[in-house]
């Protein structure tokens, strides 16, 4: 078992041990999942999938070589077409945001800036939902967009507040394993504390707590 695990680790590590040089990478860096599935030389048997039946236009913000390489890389993944669409949407949105940022710095007509901001504003909740931006980043983007769309500062603050309430979710529910872990942890600590001070072995308590923690949370399931 240990040997098998070590062998698995060795195979997994092999691609990573070779420095990634531009010559090896071509337009797109080799993704870990692809490297793992195909092995370091691509020799591991893997079904050769047909080319994706989507050939959308190159999204703004990336080169045609990068886009082509991405299509090759996603070939064979069941979610490949959907992933390409998502990435295309993301690149387009991100590039428009870049143009919005540059337009603010260089100065363009207010109406043009507002139009640019409006389109980015509409795409932002989807970017957040897809974890392409963080909550704090999204709020910062929204505040920048609102500055272009809403000239009145107090209305802008209200709108930002409403937007945050609508789109920034509170943290997810606490891990269900935690309550039981804490209950059993309290029992261990109470038993340890009940001993005479001279008899309390901090090292032993730490080992017991660690054993409980590993038992409670296992091997990293989400």
């Amino acid at each position, binding site marked *: 078992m240990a040997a098998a*695990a070590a062998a*698995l680790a*060795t195979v*997994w*590590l092999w691609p*990573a041990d070779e*420095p*990634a040089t531009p010559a090896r990478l071509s*337009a*797109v*860096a080799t*993704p*870990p*999942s692809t490297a793992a599935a195909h092995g370091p030389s691509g020799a591991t048997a893997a079904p050769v999938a047909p080319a994706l039946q989507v050939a959308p236009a190159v999204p703004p913000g990336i080169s045609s070589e*990068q886009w082509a390489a*991405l299509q090759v890389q996603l070939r064979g993944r069941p979610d490949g077409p959907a992933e390409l669409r*998502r*990435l295309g949407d*993301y690149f387009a949105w*991100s590039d428009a945001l870049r143009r919005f*940022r540059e337009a603010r710095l260089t100065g363009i007509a207010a109406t043009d800036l507002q139009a640019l901001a409006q389109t980015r504003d509409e795409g932002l909740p989807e*970017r*957040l939902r897809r*974890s*392409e*931006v*963080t*909550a*704090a*980043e999204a*709020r*910062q*983007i929204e*505040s*920048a*967009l609102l500055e272009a769309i809403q000239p009145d500062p107090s209305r802008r*603050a209200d709108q930002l507040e409403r937007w*945050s309430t609508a789109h*920034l*979710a*509170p*943290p997810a529910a*606490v891990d269900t394993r*935690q309550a039981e*872990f*804490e209950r059993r942890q309290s029992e261990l*600590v109470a038993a*340890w*504390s009940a001993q005479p001070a001279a008899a309390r072995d901090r090292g032993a*308590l*730490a080992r017991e*707590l660690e054993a409980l*923690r590993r038992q*409670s*949370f*296992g*091997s*990293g*399931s*989400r």
Partner: protein
Amino acid sequence: MTRCTRILSAFALLLGAPLAQAGYFQWEMVELPAATGAACGDGSPYRFFVNRTPFSHDMAVSFEGGGACWDQKACLGEGKLGAANPNGIPVDYMQSPNVAHGLVTPFTARNDPAQTVQTQSWNLVFFPYCTGDVHAGSKVAVYADAYPATPRVEYHRGQANVSAAAQWLRANLGQPAKLLLTGFSAGGVGATVTYPLVRDALQPTGNVTLLADSGPLMQAPRSGSPAQYPSLPLHNTIRAAWGLDEADGLVTRFSSGLLVGFDPNNLGSVSGALALTYPGDRFGYMLFTRDSNFSAFSYEKFYPDIANAPNQSAYQHALFSRWWPDIAQWTAALDAYANVSYYVPYFRNVNDSHCLTIIDFSGTGIESAGIASVAPFVDSSLDRGPPTRLVEPENAADFTQPLSIYVRLFNLISRSP
């Protein structure tokens, strides 16, 4: 067990972690297996986040900040100096308004509307902070000083978290080309003290850079006195509280060959030892002269004249009468190393003038040197420009300098009831 077997076993353990299944340009969560020793302060699993790009092999790792603790209340997150995330890191932390206290740093925002930095096109990694130990500890503590009936078990597991996360990154993303380690506040300290762990695990093939924001390790030799070295009581406290001197503690590891030139009797020697150990790397440190947050964290619980100051003026006097000599000794020590830079502007009216790289870079200039913001310092460090060593003289104009709409907005929100 041979070293090779131990390493393979460690990697094999990490294979049990959920693997990256999210797409490029998305924040994916990685929960480290309990068996790696990784944990948040409350014992819950440690989770970190990765945002990959297919267009680069460079990697920027950001360490979250947020207080620290060596007593029960602070470990529960209570008080202004309490530790962040006492209840662990939820799976959707990056989508939560609470991430990094709602603060953006350009090092974790690809689409930052306010601030561009070259690392926004790199693979981005975010290490949340939930252990109250500036990502450095190796100890399980039981705190019952405030609420004896309900003790707080605190897993100061920062070192294990960073080590396991670095190994996961190596196993799943491979060797990076360029590598940046950065962090703000406690994250700045964390990025500094765990630098060798991450660097050695990832073995980057290109330039490696540290940008530690507002988390200085001040000079504090144990042979000195608090009057000479005001950070000495803090250093002595955290060494014991976080297990830094225990068998697997960071000080012990530094002294056992991990760092060249480290003096175990002076935590402040870490910065110089890093420079000596990795002479080809670049180390950049930043802070504000009038930072009244990290200075409070450093001294307030150790000097009664600060804690009991009768008014704000006396409080600031007591604080800065220690902070400014500490800064002077810190920069003097850093001057000895050719690959070390520092950048110390005077004041910015946000977050107690604490941290330069949060929100955006507005208000971080050193006008007397003709520098508008910290951006050139960041670029120069990454691009191997001449080392920058600047401390802004007292500059009253900083108190009224114009700040960006984002900084003003943050001030507005943070001052709201």
